[in-house]
C-alpha cells in the first residue's frame, strides 16, 4: 500500500520535472509549445551519448543535459520562437508540431530508431526496505531532485528580481519595456530555462520512461495533461496536479487493472470540468 503510494509520488514527480518547463513557457509566456518533448528528448540523448559513448558519470550528465538543452532552447528562441509570441495559438501549435516532426526524424537519423538505455550507477539502482516499505533508490532520488526543483522554481519566480521582471513582462509587455525591463532578454532567458528543465526531465526520465525518437510525440500528451489540470499560472498547481495524476494512475493500475488506462484521462476530464482554468486559477482564463 505504502509502496504504491511511494511509486505514485515518484511517478508524479517525474511527470512534474518533465512538465514544469512547459509550465514556464506555456504558463508564463503564454506560448503553446508542443515541442517541449523534443527538448526533453534532447536532454535524454545528451545523457545517453555521454554515458554510453564517453562513460561520463550520470551525475555530471544531469547538469550537462540541462545546460546543452538550455543553450539549444536559447538558440531556437532567438532564431525562431521569438517571432511567434504574438501569433495565434493555432500558429504556435502548428509551428511546434513542425519542430517535433523535425526532431523525431532527426533523432532517428542520428541516433537510430531503437530504444536507448542507460545504466545507472550502482548506488542509484535497486531498492531498499524502510519499515517494510519497498523503496526504489532511483525513485527516491527523483523525488528529492524534484522537490528541490519545485521549491527553487517557486522561489525564483516569487522572490527574485528576475522573477518579478518576468511576471511584469508577461502581464504587460509594453509597460514593462517602458520601465526599462529588457523584455526580449527576459523572455529568451526564461525560454532557455524552461527548455533546460525539459532537458533535465528527459535525462532523468530516460531510465524509467525510455528514450527513442518518438519520445516527444508519445509523452506530449502527458505533459499537456499535467499543465492543463494544474493550470498555467502557478508552479504549485502543476506540482499538485502531477502528484495527483501520478498517484491516481499508479494506484488505479494496481488495484483495478481493467480500467487502469482510463484513470488518467477520466481524471483529467473531470478536473477540467470542475476547474476549467486549473487547480489554482488566477481568475478568468486567457
Amino acid at each position, binding site marked *: 500500500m505504502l509502496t504504491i503510494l511511494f511509486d505514485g509520488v515518484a511517478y508524479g514527480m517525474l511527470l512534474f520535472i518533465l512538465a514544469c518547463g512547459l509550465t514556464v513557457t506555456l504558463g508564463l509566456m503564454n506560448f503553446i509549445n508542443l515541442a517541449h518533448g523534443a527538448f526533453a528528448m534532447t536532454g535524454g540523448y545528451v545523457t545517453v551519448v555521454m554515458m554510453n559513448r564517453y562513460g561520463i558519470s550520470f551525475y555530471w550528465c544531469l547538469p550537462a543535459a540541462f545546460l546543452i538543452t538550455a543553450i539549444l532552447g536559447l538558440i531556437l528562441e532567438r532564431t525562431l520562437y521569438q517571432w511567434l509570441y504574438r501569433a495565434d495559438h493555432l500558429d504556435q501549435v502548428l509551428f511546434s508540431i513542425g519542430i517535433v516532426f523535425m526532431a523525431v526524424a532527426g533523432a532517428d537519423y542520428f541516433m537510430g530508431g531503437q530504444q536507448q538505455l542507460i545504466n545507472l550507477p550502482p548506488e542509484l539502482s535497486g531498492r531498499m526496505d524502510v519499515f517494510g516499505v519497498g523503496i526504489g533508490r532511483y525513485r527516491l532520488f527523483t523525488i528529492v531532485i524534484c522537490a528541490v526543483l519545485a521549491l527553487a522554481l517557486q522561489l525564483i519566480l516569487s522572490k527574485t528580481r528576475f522573477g518579478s521582471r518576468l511576471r511584469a513582462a508577461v502581464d504587460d509587455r509594453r509597460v514593462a519595456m517602458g520601465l526599462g525591463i529588457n523584455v526580449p532578454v527576459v523572455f529568451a532567458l526564461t525560454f532557455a530555462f524552461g527548455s533546460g528543465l525539459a532537458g533535465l526531465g528527459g535525462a532523468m526520465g530516460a*531510465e524509467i520512461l525510455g528514450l527513442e525518437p518518438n519520445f516527444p510525440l508519445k509523452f506530449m500528451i502527458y505533459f499537456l495533461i499535467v499543465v492543463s489540470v494544474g493550470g498555467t499560472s502557478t508552479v504549485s498547481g502543476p506540482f499538485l496536479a502531477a502528484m495527483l495524476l501520478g498517484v491516481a494512475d499508479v*494506484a488505479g493500475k494496481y488495484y483495478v487493472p481493467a480500467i487502469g488506462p482510463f484513470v488518467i484521462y477520466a481524471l483529467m476530464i473531470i478536473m477540467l470540468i470542475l476547474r476549467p482554468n486549473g487547480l489554482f486559477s488566477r481568475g478568468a482564463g486567457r
Partner: protein
Amino acid sequence: MLKGLLLGVAGLAMTLTNAVPVFAQEVVKVGLILPMTGPFASTGRQVSAGAKAFIAAKGDTAGGKKIELIIRDDGGVADQTRRIAQELVVNEGTKVLAGFGLTPLAMAVAPVATQAKIPTVVMAAGTAAITKASPFITRTSGTLPQYSVPVGTWASQNGIKKVVTLVSDYGPGVDAEKWFTKEFKAKGGEIAEAVRIPLQNPDFAPFLQRVRDAKPDAVFVFLPSGVGSLFMKQFADRGLADAGIKLIATGDVTDDDILNSMGKPAIGTITGHFYATSHDSPENKAYVEAFEKANNKMRPNFMSVGGYDGMALIYNALEKTKGDASGPAFMEAVKGLSWTSPRGPVSIDPETRDIIQNIYIREVKEVNGQLHNVEFQTFSALKDPEKAEAK
C-alpha cells in the same frame, strides 16, 4: 442531378477500364510494405535490411526473372498499408507483396490479396489468425502461440509451479497469455494471476508490484521489443529477481538488437523464440557477418530473419514455378517448401501456409563481453498450435 451524372459516368468508365494491364515478364516486382517511421520503425528497418541481405547474398534473379524490391513506408497505420498495397498492385504491377510489421497491417491487406490473387508474405506480424484471412497469405516470421507454448513446457519441466503472466494488452499479448496458460496448466502448473498492461504505459511500477505481491516462482512476459527492455530494467530495480521470481518470456523481450544495452539486469532471463543472433550454424555465421557489415554493426534480430526468409521463400517458389508469379501457381509452389534458414530448418505447412520451425529455449549470457541469447534446448519442427488445434 450531379450525383446521378457522376454515378452514370462512373459506371461507364468502369466497364471500359476493367481489363487488367499486362506487364513485362522479365521483372518480378516485390512490394515491401513496412513501418519505416513511427513507433515500430525498428521493425521496418530490421526486416528491410534482412530482405536486402538476402538479395545481396543470392543475387537478384530467381526462376529466370529479375527481382526488384520496392520499399514503402506505411508508418504503422493500417489504412495506409492497404492503400499502398493496392497502389503497388494496380499502378506498379507488383507481383508479390511482403513485409507487414504488425497484425492489423497484415489484416488490412488480406482483402486485397484475395481480390487481386497476389501472393502475400508476412515477414513480421505474429498473431496466429493472419494466415486464415486470405488463401494468398503465407508467413516467414512465426506465431505467438508457436513460441509461447514451448516456454510453458520448459517452465513446467524445470520446477516452476506458480506463475504470473504479464502481457501487453493487445492481440499478440492475449495470444501469448492464452497459449502459455493452456500449456502450463495442462502440465500441472498454477497461474496465480494474469496481468495485462495497456499499450500506452510509461511506468511499470504498479504492475510489477502486483507481480511481487502474488509471490510466484516465475513471471511470464510478452511485450513488444522496445517496451520489453524498459520492463527489464524496472524488473531488476524492483528486486523481483532477489525475491526469487524468475523471468521467463518470449524472445521479443530480449530482442537481440537492443539486448546489449540492457546490461546486467537481463542476464539469466529465459526466453523462447525462433531465432537468436548467436545461433550456431554456418548459414547463420555468414548471415550475421554480412548483415552487420552492411548495416553499420546493427545486430540482426528475429525480424530481420523474417525478412531474409521471406525473400528465400519468394526465390524458392519462383524457382519451382519457373518464374510464374501468378497467385494460384505461386501459392501452390509455396506449400511444402523447405529450406535451411539462418535460424535452422524451416518449411511451410501445406495446409495452413504458416511456417514450421524449431523453437529454441535460450538464456541471456555474457559471451565475449557481449550479451547474447544462448540456446540450450530445442523443440523441433513446431507447427502453429492454434491452427493445429482447430482441425
